[in-house]
């Protein structure tokens, strides 16, 4: 029996350029006890669908067609007061970015009480104990104490648990989870998703999980719907979708999702795969890090961000640096790229200790051009006032003696190299898409022929299909130019695709390093095993355990 039925739903937004249809006639059903995954890349209309169903669209958005029926109630026609009664009691929602989703100046216990009191699940006298029970239900230890906490005192994962507690406090029958793990660390991600899955199973709820991560959706959902440009392109069980995708777009998504056993070329659609790259053998050391430390003076004493790490990167080699937020990987890459000075230790580059050349003056150092970086957030890494051309030309102008005319030619050559159409060179960053910005960022970094390139999560903000393209571009550039990479990432599966060796960091220390194959297949440190276990496993080839448990 279907709990929720959506028929031919259309949602449009009034914008300055007229009406834009974000959802163009989709139909789907959620049955009792079913977990439906809606998968799509940014702009596919997946989140809009859920907001339309909650009738929480932005002011300029409206449901322009179709019907929404929940348990016999017509949600499109229902009065606002009816909707308010339904929200939180029948249908609940959890969100991405949990910290922002909580009122920053209200105790979390009170926020839960607000919902309980609103739906008459508690009275003034027993609200407190009911709220504490709700906190315990989401496996928050020491719930009594947490009741009095403000969101800023809690970790991201803990905030998400509180958001879940608010959503589930009144025992709704349908839970909508909108990218519930975006912005959380990978191990927290798994803990949160496991918790959601357990609670859904415990309470026999139905759920709609909205995500861009096909692997995650496949692991936790009974049925998947793939959306693109406001339409449903395919629907089916996770295994069928993965093993026999019908629609070209689904196939592309499935291919682009990093998974064990697949090479970087296999992320691309079949017709775009070129020959496997022939990577150079790496023998001579290029960069040797010896006992590198970084200690900051925090308000409450020294903070040891990096605690004496040593490793090397050979000429032409690609090394992955993996860890969760706060592990010290960003501090390490900032030191290597000579933006900040280490507290102690050596950075030997071609045998010369760069740590002795202070970061303040490194702009004039002879090795400046040889060490470059591709930044994580493509938007933030470009001067908003400079065109792509100016951004790429800047290092050429500052670090080489290239005359102006040759610089123009070189910029166009670089654009060709990274596959950026030349007309786009005169655009400002805000006029470029994420993938295009990633290309500009790479072009800028390789403009001065560096020997060593730090890639700081260059694909973290990109959709998977674009990520596949960018990763392949990086592999091609490495083969062509023989640059050494240090690939910084939180995702072991992505790192494996690009790197010969992997370094795993935690709390400012290296817990494990070795060849990519050995670290991935026979991890020696428990933390590496935890990381590996935490990343979602697409159902290839065996069916996932979750569906078996249902």
């Amino acid at each position: 029996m279907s709990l929720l039925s959506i028929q031919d739903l259309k949602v449009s937004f009034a914008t300055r350029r007229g009406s834009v249809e974000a959802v163009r006639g989709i139909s789907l059903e959620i049955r009792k006890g079913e977990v439906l995954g809606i998968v799509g890349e940014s702009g596919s209309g997946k989140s809009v669908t859920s907001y339309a169903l909650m009738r929480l669209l932005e002011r300029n958005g409206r449901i322009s067609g179709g019907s929404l029926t929940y348990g016999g109630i017509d949600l499109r026609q229902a009065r606002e007061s009816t909707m308010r009664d339904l929200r939180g009691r029948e249908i609940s929602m959890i969100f991405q970015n949990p910290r922002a989703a909580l009122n920053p100046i209200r105790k979390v216990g009170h926020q839960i009480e607000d919902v309980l009191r609103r739906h008459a699940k508690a009275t003034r006298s027993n609200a407190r104990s009911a709220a504490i029970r709700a906190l315990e239900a989401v496996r928050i230890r020491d719930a009594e104490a947490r009741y009095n906490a403000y969101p800023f005192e809690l970790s991201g994962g803990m905030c998400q648990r509180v958001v879940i507690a608010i959503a589930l406090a009144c025992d709704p029958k349908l839970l909508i989870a909108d990218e519930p793990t975006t912005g959380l660390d990978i191990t927290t991600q798994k803990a949160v998703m496991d918790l959601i899955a357990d609670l859904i199973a415990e309470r026999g709820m139905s759920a709609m999980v909205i995500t861009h991560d096909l692997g995650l959706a496949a692991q936790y959902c009974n049925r998947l719907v793939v959306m693109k440009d406001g339409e449903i392109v395919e629907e089916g069980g996770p295994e069928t979708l993965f093993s026999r995708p019908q629609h070209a777009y689904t196939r592309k998504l499935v291919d682009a999702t990093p998974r064990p056993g697949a090479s970087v070329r296999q992320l691309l659609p079949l017709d775009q795969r070129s020959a496997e790259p022939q990577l150079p053998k790496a023998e001579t050391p290029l960069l040797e890090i010896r006992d590198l430390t970084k200690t900051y003076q925090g308000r409450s004493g020294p903070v040891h961000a990096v605690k004496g790490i040593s490793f090397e990167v050979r000429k032409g080699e690609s090394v992955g640096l993996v860890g969760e937020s706060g592990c010290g990987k960003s501090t390490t890459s900032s030191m290597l790229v000579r933006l900040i000075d280490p507290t102690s230790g050596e950075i030997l580059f071609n045998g010369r200790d760069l740590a002795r050349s202070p970061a303040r003056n490194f702009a004039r150092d002879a090795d400046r051009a040889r060490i470059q970086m591709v930044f994580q957030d493509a938007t933030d890494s470009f001067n908003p006032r400079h065109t792509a051309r100016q951004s790429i030309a800047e290092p050429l102008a500052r670090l080489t003696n290239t005359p102006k005319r040759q610089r123009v030619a070189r910029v166009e050559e670089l654009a060709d190299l990274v596959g950026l159409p030349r007309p786009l060179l005169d655009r400002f960053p805000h006029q470029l898409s994420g993938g295009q910005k990633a290309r500009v960022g790479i072009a800028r970094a390789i403009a001065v022929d560096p020997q060593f390139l730090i890639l700081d999560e260059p694909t973290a903000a990109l959709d998977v299909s674009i990520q596949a393209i960018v990763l392949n571009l990086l592999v091609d550039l490495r083969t062509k130019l023989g640059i050494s990479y240090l690939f910084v990432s939180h995702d072991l599966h992505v790192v494996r695709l690009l790197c010969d060796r992997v370094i795993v960091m935690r709390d400012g220390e290296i817990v494990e390093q070795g060849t990519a194959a050995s670290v991935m297949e026979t991890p020696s440190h428990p933390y590496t095993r935890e990381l590996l276990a935490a990343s979602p496993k697409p159902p290839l080839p065996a069916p996932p355990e979750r569906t078996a448990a249902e």
Partner: protein
Amino acid sequence: MAGRLRTIGLRITHAIPVILGVVVVSFLLTRALPGDPAVYFAGHAADEASIEEVRTALGLDKPLPEQFLVYAGNVLTGDLGQSLSTGQPVIEDLAHRLPASLELTLTALLLSCTIAIPLGVLAATRPGSAVDHLCRVLVTAGVSLPTFFTGVLLIYIFYYLLGIAPSPLGRLDFIYIEPDRITGFYLIDAAIAGDWETWTGALKQLVLPAITLTLFTLAPLARMTRAAMLSALSSDYIRTARAAGLTEDKVLFTYAFRNALLPVVTTLGMVFSFTLGANVLVEKVFAWPGIGSYAVEALVVSDYAAVQGFVLAMALLFVVLNLVIDLSYTLIDPRIGFETR
């Protein structure tokens, strides 16, 4: 809670260097007078002997750091010098006239808050509506109005044309008798005395200058409230609250408004600053016998001790007001105590 108390203590101690800075600046202002400060402080009619007397009294014959110590000591004991025009110690003149200024300023601020904040909230909850447009027009027009001009216009309309306002000369028409001084606030003193006739008279005098000041402070407050409310309403936690089915009242007041209050309270500091400045102009227009018109009168006769005393008094008053704002901010925002850890 201990953290909260410590924060409050910390805030209060933070005011100390500011007060010190204020005293230094006002000292520098008294010594920056072109020419011989002693001549200025002694006034036009002074002869050699009295100039010398002033010089020794102010310690002007000593080196600058020592002069500062003398000055700071004088300020500490409440000695701001003698006013030439009234012949009284400046501190006594100021103390006598301060209630008049406070009565006007506080009435205006109260009025302004009670109009601007609801207006801003209404405008933010109904973007594009008539209230929103009214708010926008008021805000843009309000910040463009020179207070002294508004005052003059209001006098012309309500006193000259309509004849419903009393003549713009001070706090009380001469037909009434000044109420016994208890607080110095006529409205309060008259009420305590039970003299409602005088109370009404004082109120009538107060209305126009208070409205003039209110018009001026309305704009920044309404603008800030609207902006803060809009940003609060578009934040994620409001979406969470709505998704949990909370009533619109709860969402608006417990969730949005309390958060929006934080930037509004911060703006209040700036508004106070403007109000205290505008107060001087309004007092001149309405011949209001507060410390602002005292300073203006002193300026005309080059009575520098009085002017500098006024500047210092206003600054200290403002420091206190800011401290109150800071403290109320600490009470609303639980995060404050932890930032300073």
